[in-house]
């Protein structure tokens, strides 16, 4: 049997000509620490990375083309599959863009349903990231604790969305199902339980000496580097910029809640870790306030059966668990979008990896990749 040892197009492009004293290493696409199918080509000098280049596209599904061939309502399920960990934020970005284009006013109750479910989803996303990141660094137990809590939140969301992972429960003009008392009681119980759990997380992992050694002063991203690569979300906030779409361009009813935007000035992987854990606390605060403010009312606005936005374009951004999710939507007046562009935060966050990982140990690069909180289907779309 003949093996072609020249590599494929990307590795040949990466390694132009023979190398001396360095080694080209192909990390992924099937590698447990890449959480899916991310492939990174690295040139190593001993244990140190000279340069790195992520190779994308293994999970590319061309959502933007699908958007141009489906009607507005038919495209909603796609959004739950772009980022399976924070699906509701993508739901929101899309329906929000259509609503902005058509000038639809969403009923107040529906906004609360959206806020509560979206924040629950954010907590779930951060919990999974937390477990998976610690597992990347060699600690297997914490992910099981994280899944314990995640399961509880999933059970809750299943009640009002009907699914456990790829949520697509938002509709243009509202949501598919109202919250009932069982759900609200469950949410209250979840919010009451989580602070204790977060304390346990801190004792178990955050204060762990070995863990801190793997995170502190590793993968430092100065603000200028973050801006150069358009990083958003916890990656940016871990560099000390208090930028959050929920505060910067308040959409929906986020201006009614009292919450802070956690930041860390250390700019390293530990900073990003702490920001995400603090965000869980802030999301819990938003949910608690939303449940208190709740009032009765309809959950769907009156929208035409066939969605035909007027000619025009819009850009709608929401804050996802990984950063700024943007949908650029252009309508030509027909029942199918003319152009739909999905701005994925993970793509921008990953693009700084090459520069960030330069000169670091390979084992630290795994820590950096984990601290960026990548979701591959969202990068590849």
């Amino acid at each position, binding site marked *: 049997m003949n093996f072609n040892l020249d590599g494929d197009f990307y590795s040949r492009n990466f390694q132009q000509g023979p190398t001396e004293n360095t080694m080209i290493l192909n990390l992924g696409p099937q590698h447990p620490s890449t959480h899916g199918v991310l492939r990174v080509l690295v040139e190593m000098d001993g244990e140190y990375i000279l340069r790195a280049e992520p190779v994308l*596209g293994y999970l590319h599904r061309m959502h933007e083309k699908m958007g141009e061939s489906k009607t507005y309502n038919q495209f909603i399920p796609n959004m739950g599959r772009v980022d399976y960990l924070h699906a509701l934020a993508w739901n929101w970005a899309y329906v929000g863009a259509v609503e902005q284009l058509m000038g639809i006013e969403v009923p107040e109750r529906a906004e609360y349903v959206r806020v509560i479910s979206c924040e629950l989803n954010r907590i779930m996303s951060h919990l999974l990231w937390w477990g998976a990141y610690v597992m990347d660094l060699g600690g297997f137990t914490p992910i099981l604790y994280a899944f314990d809590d995640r399961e509880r939140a999933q059970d809750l969301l299943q009640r009002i969305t009907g699914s456990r992972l790829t949520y697509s429960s938002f509709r243009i003009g509202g949501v598919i199902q109202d919250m009932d008392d069982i759900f609200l009681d469950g949410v209250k119980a979840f919010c009451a339980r989580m602070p204790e759990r977060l304390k346990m997380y801190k004792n178990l992992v955050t204060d762990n000496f070995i863990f801190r050694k793997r995170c502190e002063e590793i993968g430092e991203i100065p603000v200028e580097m973050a801006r150069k*690569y358009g990083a958003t979300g916890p990656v940016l906030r871990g560099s000390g910029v208090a*930028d959050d779409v929920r505060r910067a361009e308040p959409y929906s009813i986020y201006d009614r809640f009292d919450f802070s935007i956690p930041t860390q000035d250390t700019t390293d992987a530990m900073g990003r870790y702490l920001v995400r854990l603090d965000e869980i606390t802030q999301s819990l605060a938003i949910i608690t306030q939303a449940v208190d403010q709740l009032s009765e009312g309809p959950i769907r606005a009156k929208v035409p059966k066939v969605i035909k936005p007027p000619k025009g*374009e819009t850009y709608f951004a929401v804050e996802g668990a990984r950063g700024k999710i943007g949908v650029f939507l252009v309508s030509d007046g027909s029942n199918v979008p003319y152009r739909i*562009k999905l*701005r994925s935060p993970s793509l921008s966050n990953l693009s700084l990896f090459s520069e960030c990982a330069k000169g670091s140990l390979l084992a630290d690069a795994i820590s950096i990749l984990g601290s960026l909180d990548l979701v591959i289907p969202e990068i590849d779309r």
Partner: protein
Amino acid sequence: MKDWIPAEWLKDVESFDLAACKNEATGTKWNLFLQHQRLRKAARALFDAGYFLEDITGMDGKEGIEVIYHFNQYEKPSRVTLRTLIVHENPEIPTISDIIPAANWHERECYDFFGITFTGHPNLIPLLLPDNFGFHPLLKKEDKRVSLFDSLSNCQTIGVKVPCVESPENPSDKE
């Protein structure tokens, strides 16, 4: 007029049109229509003024392919959109990836989807599509294309043509 795009960089850039947009309807504050040769200057000026690049995308239409650059600022919503037009026969435009590294991948994505060649790009290989894909999926058939100006209905064209003189006046004073 407050919230004007930074006047100090606007004077470096000659745009052939400037449009103010209803922010709540379009999510964009300013649309700036640029000639190719002004693009790099505009990107540099925006970047120096503290903006970051959100994304680069294209849109296929009757007049050609519109290349759209979304810029924004941290901590306050002020999306500025740069737009240039390239013809179908010769889809070429200068790269801005040496000014803003974030553009590197976004330009590669546009190269995949629209076949736009960004001249000067250091590594213009497919990003998301396979290397032998053969066609550009987001280009539309000729009868499906609509006019690119249709989508700008929520924008009010101001049409400031900033002249390239030694000391141009601050446009915010004119308002």
